[in-house]
Every structure is written in structure tokens, then in C-alpha cells.
């Protein structure tokens, strides 16, 4: 456990090392938030509510979505394929710790860094310039849901990254993942604006739990009992994805050993 904490701490510190990067990433986060706010304000002019969501709820939705985007800084989808194609992965195999947990600890450290350098400054900026409304249901439920979201998006990213063991010539599959998540998770556009049939299909996929579930809890679109049910489904997805991840990892390990001769 101490080893993983150390890994997380080192990652947190290294993310703070380059001041220029810290400022530009903060700038990126602010641009995403501010542009979405004005976009939806323009969309709502002349419309009271769409699908039971009014303007102030929608503004809260995009603000918190931008904060979550900044918080979910996940590097495994870039670093692992790079390690695999460069062969550096071998060095990791020498280490007497569980690598999946090590990579997770790294990204937890990165997320902690993002919290300090991006999420909190962005929150202060948004509160001063626009005002951020408090969560409509319970803040605790929102936090729980966000924690599960982090696990879900991290395991999906890690699974995609591990596919590089087989398809390392295909380039970065993580861009595809980013595109799919952006479109299907409610990060960019709430899924309730899609046609009913598409929404039905999406409800059987894990993506909407990454953004839309915690955000819906935040803006009070779900009733308290619906929140609990949504959390349960999130939990089921998280457990399922973790199991899948470890299964793929055990296969992938052997793949590397074979390649190494």
C-alpha cells in the first residue's frame, strides 16, 4: 500500500513541475467551461425548458461537466501504449508490485494534481464570474457517483490501452475512446437531447455513467430514489469493468512474455 501511495505522490509532484503546462491546462479548462456556458445561454434564449431541464440547471450541468473533464486527467491510455511500443514495459514487469494498481495509483496522483491546479481555480473563477449553483440533491451522492465514474472511465481507458499489446501498430486507440466518450457520455451534450431510440440503446452502455449520471444527480434531474438506483447500476458497471480489466491484463502479460522470446 505504501508503495502505491508513493507512486501517486510522485505523480502528483511531477504534474506540478512544469509551471507553463499548469497554466495552459488551466486555460484550456476555463475555455471549455466559458464557451459551453455562452453556447447554452444562446440556445436557451427564447426557450424555457427542454426535457424538464431549465437554463440555470443546464448552465450548472456544463460548468460541473467542465470541472469533471479537468478532474478526470487520465494518462494510462497514452503512457501504456507508448511503453509497449518502446519496450519500456519490461522494466515495469521487474517491479514487485501489481502493475494495474500502480497505473491506477499514478492516475489518482494525476487527478489529485488536477484538483489542486485546475478544478479548484476553475471553480473559484466560475463562482466569481458566473456563480455556481449548489447541488440540488445530496452532495454526498454526487461525490459517490463521481468516484464510481472515475473508476469506470479509468478501467475503460486501461482496457483500451492494453489492446496495444495486440494492435500496437494501429496507433493510439485512445483517440477513438475519447471521441466515443465525448459523444456518448453526456460530457458535451446531454443525452436527453438525442432521439428516444438512441437513448434506449445508450442506457445499456457504460458511457453515460461517466458524466451524465453524476451531473444529473448534481442538477437534481433525478429524484432521490432514482439517484440510489443509478448509483447501483454504476457500481455494477464498475465491478464488471474491473473484472474484465484483470482478465485482459492476465492475457496481455502472457502476450508480452511470448514476444520477448
Amino acid at each position, binding site marked *: 500500500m505504501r508503495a502505491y501511495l508513493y507512486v501517486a505522490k510522485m505523480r502528483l509532484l511531477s504534474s506540478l513541475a*512544469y509551471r*507553463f*503546462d499548469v497554466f*495552459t*491546462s488551466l*486555460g*484550456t479548462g476555463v*475555455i*471549455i467551461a466559458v*464557451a459551453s456556458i*455562452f*453556447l447554452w*445561454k*444562446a*440556445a*436557451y*434564449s427564447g*426557450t424555457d425548458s*427542454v*426535457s424538464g431541464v431549465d437554463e440555470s440547471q443546464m448552465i450548472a450541468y456544463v460548468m460541473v461537466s467542465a470541472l469533471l473533464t479537468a478532474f478526470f486527467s487520465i494518462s494510462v491510455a497514452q503512457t501504456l501504449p507508448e511503453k509497449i511500443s518502446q519496450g519500456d514495459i519490461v522494466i515495469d514487469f521487474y517491479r514487485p508490485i501489481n502493475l494495474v494498481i500502480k497505473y491506477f495509483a499514478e492516475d489518482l496522483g494525476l487527478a489529485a494534481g488536477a484538483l489542486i491546479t485546475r478544478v479548484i481555480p476553475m471553480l473559484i473563477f466560475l463562482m466569481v464570474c458566473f456563480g455556481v449553483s449548489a447541488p440540488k440533491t445530496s452532495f454526498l451522492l454526487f461525490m459517490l457517483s463521481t468516484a464510481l465514474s472515475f473508476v469506470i472511465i479509468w478501467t475503460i481507458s486501461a482496457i483500451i490501452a492494453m489492446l496495444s499489446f495486440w*494492435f500496437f*501498430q*494501429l*496507433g*493510439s*486507440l485512445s*483517440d*477513438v475512446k475519447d*471521441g*466515443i466518450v*465525448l*459523444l456518448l457520455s453526456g460530457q*458535451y*451534450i446531454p443525452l436527453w*437531447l*438525442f432521439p428516444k431510440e438512441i437513448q434506449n440503446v445508450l442506457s445499456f452502455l457504460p458511457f453515460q455513467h461517466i458524466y451524465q449520471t453524476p451531473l444529473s444527480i448534481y442538477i437534481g434531474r433525478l429524484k432521490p430514489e432514482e439517484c440510489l438506483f443509478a448509483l447501483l447500476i454504476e457500481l455494477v458497471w464498475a465491478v464488471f469493468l474491473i473484472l474484465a480489466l484483470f482478465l485482459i491484463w492476465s492475457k496481455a502479460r502472457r502476450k508480452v512474455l511470448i514476444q520477448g522470446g
Partner: protein
Amino acid sequence: MKSVRHHLIVAAYYIKLSVMKQLEYPLYILGTMLMIPLMYLTGILLLYYMVENFHSLAGWSFPQLAFMYGLGYLSHGVMMVFSVQNWWIGTYVLRGEFDRMLLRPLSVFFQFSAMYFNVIGLMDLFVGAAIFFYACDLVHFEWTWLSTINIILVIAASSLLRSAIFTIFCSTAFWTKRSQSMVMLLNEFMDKTTMYPLSIYPHAVQMVLTLVIPIGFISYYPACAILGKSSSIELPVEISIWTLLTSITVHLLSRLVFRLGLKKYESTGS
């Protein structure tokens, strides 16, 4: 005249070399090319479902928004093919790649501009063009000799402008040695300001995007002019001329900034 010919021959060799280098990894190219359309789809679907639910965005209908989106992404495609190397100035600085260019008897900016022809970027160009022509159809664009020449000029100018803005901002890597996070910031910034009509932003932001960082000329003002929509900031004289003038001015400025940065360049080591 002789010097122009010489530059063209050198550029052709550069392009040939970089294409051959990239074709060494055909699967990588194929994989990445398959992913690109997905990214464009996200943007256009957002606009489509937004207008579907809210009827219009700041007075723009879906065909008009798609036209502006297509115009913006066409210039993105051209940039991806010819000047994606702006994104890598930081890496070049760290690896000392400019050493070689400084030794050759040719302008460094010319070598830098001609050195890379991005094969994968052709997909960006293709998808951008597909969206643009689809949108032209949606807004019933009339193709006459004059309007065609106008469109070609606008696309050339907005591509030049987009690349020049990237050159200016990415040249900061000569000082900071890093350009990765700057590229992410710029991409996000360009997306948000070329995809939606500028009129959704407050007046002060529009002024900045017109006069200070003239991103408005990449897609918003040309789209306003071609579609006959009035922009919230009125510009005197024909807008196509403004687009052309702005892009040439910013291009010249970008060469100046690049040259200033190069003076700061200190090779690797130490």
C-alpha cells in the same frame, strides 16, 4: 524567378521524403485515418441535436451552422496536411532539430514550412470537404464562376490564417521548450470559436476575436458574408477582402515571431 523555382524543387523533395517516411508504417496511417471521421461527427451531431431541440442557435439554422462548421474544418484540414509541424516546435527545440536547418543556405522558416507533408491529415481534409459540400447543398449555395473563385480565396485565406495563428502561439516553445499543452489549449480555443457563431459571446470577446486574435475571419465572418447574414460587429467593405488582408498580415507577423524565437534557440545540451 530562379529562386522561386529553386524553392519549389526543394519543397517537392521535402514532401516526397516525408511521404515516403510515413508510408513505412501503413497500418498506423490506416488506423489513425479511420479514427478521424469520428471526431468530426461529434461536433456536427452536437449542432444537429441542439438545433433539433432548440430550433436555432443565435438565429442560425442547422444548414447555416453546418456551412460555418464545414468552412472552419476545411481550413483545419489544410493546416493538418501542410503545417502540422507547428505542433512539434517544442520537440524540435528539445532535440536540436533546428541545427540542421540553420546550417543550410535557405530560410529556416521556409525549410520548416516545407519539411512535412502529413499523409494522415488528408483524411481531415477529406472529411472537412465532405461536410462543407454537404452543407453547401443544404444552404442551396449557387456555384457560379465568381462565387467559386470567392470560396477558393476564402478557404486559402482562412487556412493561411489558422496556420499563422498556430505558428505565433507555438513559437512560444522557443522560450518555454514545451508546446504540447499549448497545442491542446489552441485546439480547444479554435474549436469553440470557429464552430459556433461569434455572436453567442459577449461583445468584448467578439472584439478580441476580431481585432486582437482575428479568429473570427477563419469561419464566422466569411460564413456571414456568403450566407448574407449580418454579423453583430459591422465591418466596412467586402468581407472576403478583409479575410485575405487579415490572413496575409497575420502570416507576416507569424514569420516575425518565428524569427524572434529562433534567435532565442540555443540547440541541445547545456
